[in-house]
């Protein structure tokens, strides 16, 4: 690229050289503006629209851009399609650096302009690609239509055509807008304006009031009439497995209760940890179960000591045959965690959700608590291999340790990330609270 930029230096002294330089400019710009090869890069929804734009119906090839290069070294254009997370940011910057100049970037979609749907309450999304790399064209939309992308491409084309070798392409600047809270900024600016306006208007308003003491606004806003709809009763459909042998919630409960007498079924609305020493009676539990429609899965509250045994029993018992693990997840309450293991029987069709309340270990000093593991529970990876990733997720999000887990590492966040995001008291310097 360097050669062209020397053209004015060499040719200007020559008589008529200026015209030659202009001609070179024209040819080079024409080539650059009409042959934009994008890089194959996409992370989420916008990537699909980017792909759509290269497909038969929209056909980006008409602009000469169908040559999507997988290697950044052969690309000219970086269409940043999709959310950029903090974990992805270094990779994104590296890709940008690998593209040989002159290179251009299009921020496609709301996520890459400002963070999009993930602006507030978010600890992992970079609010806008312009924080990381210089962006030339912004295409708002979530995701923008392929036509909008083409419009962006044409906008970029116009921009390229304005380059000359006297003012050649150079890498733009990165703008840090990551801490920009547009809502609060606008409100603040408006408040300041309002104050001035109030001061200015005070007299006029007082005068107006004096003149029309009985003033009532002539404007009556009309509410939009909404269609009336009937109320419909919900039908609870009962599931069935691959074979017969569906057990109702009460049957599962009694079966488990026979074996483990500390297992209880609480009202689903209760969240309190079992502080009472005595266990609720089986009848109370059955009453709780009966309160809910048939398509609500049974939720059992199990002690952490019994947890592994209960799961093992459920898996191995011939009638229960819980051979499928739907999910393992957690909930953070103020004083305790709850790990929820969702089991299902593919053959029989019934489901059991096992709630395991775990007391938080408040022995850890308060300042260290944010980054410390506060509870432990045995891992069920040996029973269900599916649990491996799920338990890693719970560990990553809540800081609950799963003992005997084969590979307990963070799964979604970096190893050096501070804190566990799904705890209610989680704070992060990058997070902006949602203003409403």
């Amino acid at each position: 690229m360097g050669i062209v930029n020397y053209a004015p230096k060499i040719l200007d002294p020559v008589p008529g050289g200026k015209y030659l330089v202009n001609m070179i400019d024209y040819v080079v710009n024409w080539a650059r503006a009409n042959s934009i090869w994008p890089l194959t890069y996409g992370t989420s929804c916008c990537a699909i629209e980017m792909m759509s734009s290269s497909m038969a119906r929209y056909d980006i090839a008409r602009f000469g851009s169908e040559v999507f290069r997988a290697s950044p070294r052969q690309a000219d254009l970086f269409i940043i399609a999709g959310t950029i997370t903090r974990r992805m940011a270094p990779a994104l910057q590296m890709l940008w650096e690998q593209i040989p100049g002159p290179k251009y970037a299009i921020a496609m979609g709301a996520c890459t302009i400002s963070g999009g749907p993930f602006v507030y309450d978010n600890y992992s999304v970079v609010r806008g690609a312009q924080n990381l790399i210089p962006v030339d064209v912004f295409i708002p939309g979530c995701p923008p239509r392929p036509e909008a992308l083409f419009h962006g491409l044409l906008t970029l084309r116009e921009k390229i055509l304005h380059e000359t070798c006297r003012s050649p392409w150079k890498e733009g600047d990165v703008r840090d807008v990551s801490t920009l809270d547009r809502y609060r900024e606008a409100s603040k600016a408006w408040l300041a304006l309002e104050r001035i306006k109030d001061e200015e208007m005070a007299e006029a308003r007082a005068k107006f009031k004096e003149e029309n003491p009985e003033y009532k606004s002539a404007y009556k806003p009309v509410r939009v009439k909404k269609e009336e709809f009937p109320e419909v009763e919900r039908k609870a459909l009962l599931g069935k497995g691959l074979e017969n042998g569906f057990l109702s919630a009460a049957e599962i409960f009694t079966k488990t209760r026979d074996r483990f007498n500390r297992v209880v079924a609480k009202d689903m609305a209760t969240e309190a940890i079992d502080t009472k020493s005595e266990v609720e009676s089986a009848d109370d539990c059955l009453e709780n179960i009966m309160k809910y429609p048939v398509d609500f899965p049974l939720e059992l509250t199990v002690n952490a000591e019994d947890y592994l045994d209960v799961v093992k029993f459920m898996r191995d018992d011939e009638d229960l045959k819980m051979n499928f693990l739907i999910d393992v997840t957690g909930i953070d309450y103020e004083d305790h965690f709850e790990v929820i293991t969702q089991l299902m029987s593919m053959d029989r069709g019934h489901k059991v959700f096992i709630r395991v309340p775990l007391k938080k270990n408040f022995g850890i000093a308060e300042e260290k608590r944010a980054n410390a593991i506060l509870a432990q529970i045995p891992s069920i990876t040996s029973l269900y291999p599916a649990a491996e990733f799920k338990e890693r997720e719970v560990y990553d999000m809540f800081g609950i340790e799963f003992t005997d887990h084969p590979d307990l590492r963070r799964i979604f966040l970096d190893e050096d990330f501070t804190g566990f995001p799904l705890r209610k008291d989680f704070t992060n310097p990058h997070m902006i609270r949602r203003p409403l």
Partner: protein
Amino acid sequence: MKKKNMTVSRYFKRYLKRCVTGPVSLVMGLSVTLKYFFNPKRIVTEQYPENKKTLKMHPRYRGRLEMIEDAEGNNKCTACGMCEKACPNASINVLATKNIAGKKVLGRYEYHFGSCTQCGLCVEACPFGAIRMSQAFEVATTDPTSLDMILNKKEGQG
């Protein structure tokens, strides 16, 4: 595909079978592409910048937010802030002011297009039908600050 205890005859049988079925299947595939190649009617491409005049979005298409204004530029907004609350990521600032009678009216309807997800929840939430989603889709820009827009031309009525 590899079976260890395959006899020689079976191996050759399979070999010969594949020699026949293989090319046939390939020719079948080729016949599809040839059919598509020689039939220009199958081309489905819409040529965007050239078809600008005929290109129309569906009536429900959610482009960017816009204010419904009458001929004089008056809007129906009462600055109730329902849309603001409905917006999942605070892309709307309903900035209220007091008019000369001291009544709360809309001062400025600020809309951050750059973060708008075009979900349409604000339009759903608006009790007075003051806003709608426009059909605009040619929205690319080189200047990100132009994406923070003010939608109302006039103060609210009241």
